[in-house]
């Protein structure tokens, strides 16, 4: 995955709470078996409205999405992360994220930036009032910068390190194959297997 250190760009303000993953990408787009090209499904239902913010040319090329609380709730579909990334977003700023969405985002290199409600509102206001304003997500310092405004955010050290290095989790876990094998050796024998009975 693409390493993430500092990203500066325009921010798209999505003033809605509880944006569930069914809205980020509807089920119809989940039938594909490939891993790319999901940008056409991003907010597919809402995009039909010409006034929807994604259709506003002033925000063309935005790389940061700012949303209301509880972004990415609902379905576990990682396609929601892929659709945001394929469209060009590198980070999402919101006061709270759905747990599964947040995990999926960090797997693929999309940075979930959880800020306080008040700071989220300030950043939303900046993006709404000046679409060309540049906002910076700085993972090294763990801050968001918008003009004079500096907003710190939390992300655990391990996830931050993985995102900054662009590391694949599977490779990291396979380094511990011996420990996995020792664990397996002492699992109780009565635990079920899926072998046909």
């Amino acid at each position, binding site marked *: 995955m693409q390493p993430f250190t500092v990203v500066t760009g325009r921010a798209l303000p999505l*003033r*809605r*709470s*509880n944006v*569930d993953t*069914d*809205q980020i990408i*509807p*089920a*119809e787009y*989940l*039938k*594909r*078996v*490939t*891993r790319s090209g999901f940008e056409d499904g991003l907010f597919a*239902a809402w995009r039909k409205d010409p006034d929807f913010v994604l259709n506003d040319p002033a925000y063309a090329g935005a790389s940061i999405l700012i949303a*209301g*609380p*509880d972004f990415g*709730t*609902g*379905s*576990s*579909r*990682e*396609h929601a*992360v892929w659709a945001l990334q394929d469209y060009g977003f590198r980070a999402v700023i919101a006061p*709270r994220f*759905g*747990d*599964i969405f947040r*995990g*999926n985002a960090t*797997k*693929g290199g999309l940075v979930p930036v959880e800020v306080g409600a008040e700071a989220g509102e300030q950043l939303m206001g900046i993006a709404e009032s000046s679409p060309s304003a540049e906002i910076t997500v700085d993972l090294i310092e763990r801050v968001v910068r918008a003009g004079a405004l500096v907003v710190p955010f939390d992300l*655990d*050290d*391990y996830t931050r390190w993985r995102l900054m290095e662009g590391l694949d*989790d*599977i490779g*990291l*876990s*396979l380094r*511990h*194959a011996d*420990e*996995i094998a020792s*664990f*397996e050796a002492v*699992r*109780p*024998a*009565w*635990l*079920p*297997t*899926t*072998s046909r*009975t």
Partner: protein
Amino acid sequence: MARTLAEKVWEAHVVRQAAGEPDLLYIDLHLIHEVTSPQAFDGLRLAGRPVRRPDLTIATEDHNVPTADIDRPIADPVSRVQVETLRKNCADFGIRLHPLGDAQQGIVHVIGPQLGLTQPGMTVVCGDSHTSTHGAFGALAFGIGTSEVEHVLATQTLPLQRPKTMSVTVEGDLAAGVSAKDLVLAVIAQIGTGGGQGHVIEYRGAAIRGLSMEGRMTVCNMSIEAGARAGMIAPDDTTFAYLQGKPHAPGDADWDAAVDYWRSLATDDDAAFDREVVIDATQLTPFVTWGTNPGQGVSLDGSVPDPSEYDDPLDRAAAERALAYMDLAPGTAVRDITVDTVFIGSCTNGRIEDLRAAAQVMRGHAVAPGVRALVVPGSVAVARQAEAEGLDAVFTSAGAEWRQAGCSMCLGMNPDKLSPGQRSASTSNRNFEGRQGPGGRTHLVSPAVAAATAVAGHLAAPEDI
């Protein structure tokens, strides 16, 4: 130190613990379906990695499959490719699959428990958020994304940050006519769709102990709608009785040892939760949703709220948006809301007990003119059981459609969909915009309320018909 059920199960699965790193957790059972797995198998192929434990992995076809004319090829070519891709992946990697037409096919969260593969104290994952269902057995079960599906296939482990714990204690007994679905909808309305975020919920208290396994699965299923990745219920005699004799349950030789271990998993008396919520079961009534997230619910005896009464501006805006989408006016009595579609099924309410509850209400009645009622069993085994009990005949003679197993109208991925502007009473779990088909409007209800609504033509309780 005193520990909770979730902490005990977590600690029994830690493969590796190191400061500053997430715990590496062993996964006992990995369930797979066609939608969230193709890119994971592709990733394995690209990296030249095998599936570490095909014998702890099982697959089924559920989201895309039609629930009528299942002996014909799947009509939608894109759905067909996805199902065929799963078949090829399972064949290539040696994974047991229950395809469309198989006697054990069904919704992934219905077949795990019915095969006895879901047991207390296990870790269970699936690329599907409603994996929380399996927590009803005292398993730690949660939904994962496709990257994590690939991770589990390759390593049988997941690196995870330890979640916080939360107890939801439901004291007292449920009144007659109030079901597990009503209970969980009321819980979500109280704690909110983000209320369980970052937590594993343990449901406790007399009302929970009094639920059947089916009811417990309904409650745990919807934990994710309260923002919690997992919900759990301590295993007890109800759990053990359900499991005994199931195909993959421990045999006679191991049974007593297994039960001893399972009993030891209950939360210690003096263990503390990070957050505690108490709910009075005796105050609960049948509950329905009026909006576009599962927390926007109200008693069936109530009315649609007025957004202007919300203090929080975001809640107010969300309620206004929801009412516009749902085409509802504030103050409308819930019972005055008419529907054109009723859906009984899904991993929330597609088990035998749910169908019995619906049939009991519908028996001897007719579906209201202009209403289409769909009854979809959660698995082929549930379908055969219902047919053996004559439930299918109750539904069809009332004028409802009796279908084959699958996710069906729970989500708009297969031929069973709402058309724009249609309104349903649905026993599924999500009333999101467009969830049951673009432009469709969903009211979440229990099986008994769904059946009564089908007969009345408007949202109704069994005693109304």
